[in-house]
């Protein structure tokens, strides 16, 4: 099957390939130096999400990314890339630091979803994700998020609601995993391939919806076959996105024009949706009032 005509389900398989480059592979090749930072300063450190600061092509940046394991042992240590609340709280404090030092935030999205365990609920998984969305909405620096593998629902969005959303050609981004959607809507998780197609989760779909801002082409057989080339292509596009955002919002003093940046973010997300508005039925009395009430 040629790359252009892969089905959604084939792309899901590529997105989940254990050999596919992960956040720390991108960090190792793109950031020099790189310093990883740990812990949420409240409860613990969750290896399912990595955070740190580094220099990216001459620019100091803050990085957040989901981290899956390359084998079973590492996957157990990293909870299969499913962050717990302490991971999101770590991300939240690192986001604040990016804002404090006017450093752009670069995020790598690669998770099946937020951890659905008992302890995660006890520690407020939903509250932790919501807090990050709120922090991102107020963050006074540009945010560029790239989906490098699987973008699994709210657990992905919690570090993904940026000013630019880029997607690797074979990455997917979905409201629920194809298996979960199949279980809910087909009442049969074996129908995941059908669900993957119906839910329209590919990079090309999301660009056509105006949700993602760009597709980054992968080597013909996928990023796992030629990781260095894939990582460099991602680096190129992140760098271009940061340049573009700097050109628009960076002030001569080296800071950011925060009100304009935040308004643009409001407008970006405001534009996402599909609805129509009917006029009220003629029989309905409508009083047009002057503004100001």
């Amino acid at each position: 099957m040629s790359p252009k005509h892969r089905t959604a389900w084939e792309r899901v398989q590529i997105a989940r390939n254990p050999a596919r480059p992960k956040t720390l592979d991108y960090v190792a090749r793109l950031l020099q130096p790189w310093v990883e930072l740990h812990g949420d300063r409240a409860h613990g450190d969750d290896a399912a999400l990595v955070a740190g600061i580094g220099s990216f092509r001459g620019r100091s940046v803050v990085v957040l990314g989901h981290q899956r394991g390359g084998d079973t042992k590492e996957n157990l240590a990293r909870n299969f890339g499913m962050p717990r609340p302490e991971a999101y709280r770590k991300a939240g404090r690192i986001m604040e630091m990016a804002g404090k030092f006017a450093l752009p935030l670069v995020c790598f999205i690669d998770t099946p979803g937020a951890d659905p365990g008992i302890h995660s609920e006890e520690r407020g998984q939903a509250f932790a994700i919501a807090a990050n969305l709120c922090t991102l909405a107020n963050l006074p620096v540009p945010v560029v998020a790239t989906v490098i593998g699987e973008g699994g629902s709210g657990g992905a969005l919690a570090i993904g609601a940026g000013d630019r959303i880029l997607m690797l050609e074979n990455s997917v981004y979905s409201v629920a995993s194809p298996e979960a959607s199949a279980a809910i809507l087909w009442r049969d998780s074996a129908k995941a391939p059908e669900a993957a197609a119906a839910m329209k989760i590919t990079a090309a779909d999301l660009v056509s919806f105006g949700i993602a801002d760009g597709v980054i082409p992968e080597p013909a057989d996928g990023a796992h076959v030629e990781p260095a080339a894939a990582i460099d292509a991602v680096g190129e596009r992140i760098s271009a996105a940061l340049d573009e955002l700097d050109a628009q919002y960076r002030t001569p003093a080296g800071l950011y024009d925060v009100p304009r940046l935040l308004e643009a973010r409001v407008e970006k997300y405001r534009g996402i949706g599909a609805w129509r508005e009917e006029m009220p039925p003629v029989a309905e009395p409508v009083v047009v009032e002057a503004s100001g009430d």
Partner: protein
Amino acid sequence: MKDWFRRHHHPSFQSAGATSREIPEDLWEKCPKCSELLYQRELENNEWVCSRCAYHFRLRAEQRIAQLTDEGSFEEHSAYLLSTDPLNFRSATESYADKLRQSREKTGLSESMLIGTATLAGCPLVLAVTDFRFMGGSMGSVYGEKLVRAVDIALDRRLPVLTVNASGGARQQEGMFSLMQMAKTTTAFARLGRERLPHISLLTDPCTAGVTASYATSADIVIAEPGALIGFAGPRVIEQTTRQKLPPGFQTAEFCLEHGMVDMVTPRRELRPTLGNLLRIFSATGGLSVVS
């Protein structure tokens, strides 16, 4: 965009009334928790709280608005926003278009979210209420757009926003459009916050997934109704994934209070006085309009 200058006369309610106000033949209601048979009129007088075990019945948006707001003060806005079907979605059993049609017929509502302006104990506010009967209160494009417009009204008139939430989360049938409403709504409410206008969120039964993980819990004040299921993953999903039995009281409003996630658990009959107090206290900060 200029829709809030138009005043509609409760269009959602008029249509809802035709189906929901019919007096059922059976005037008794069985409490889902303690199985007590309760006289409907008594339940109505008791704000749909079981007089025996204090179980809080789920409310329709219309009932919720009637309980919370000053009589005749509610004016609905953007009542004619309708979902389109951006994915042209069809599962093995049904299409989204059919599901929407059925939900509209069953509930008399156009969508799962209603927004409007009202007064509560004399304080003007913007109100956004989910109706769980409409596709499980799920958040799709219309839900998100209505919330953003609710914030617009609040910014325009310098009013606080009260959201009353009961939702299973993002609406599957609109795929990623639904997931992105989490960012869309939270971004809008963050803007409300930057303008120093308060958002008070009431979490009611049940409140899970994408709504709990976005605007509903990033509010300034988070209130939960007694016994409400509040969480990220649904209890069934957790049991299936972890193969562990859930502890008693897991993911209830009281559980959330105990773990420091909500500001208070407030019985239904105390909601109006509590909200009235909060609105009055916030109005003293100077940024709010105090007359409608």
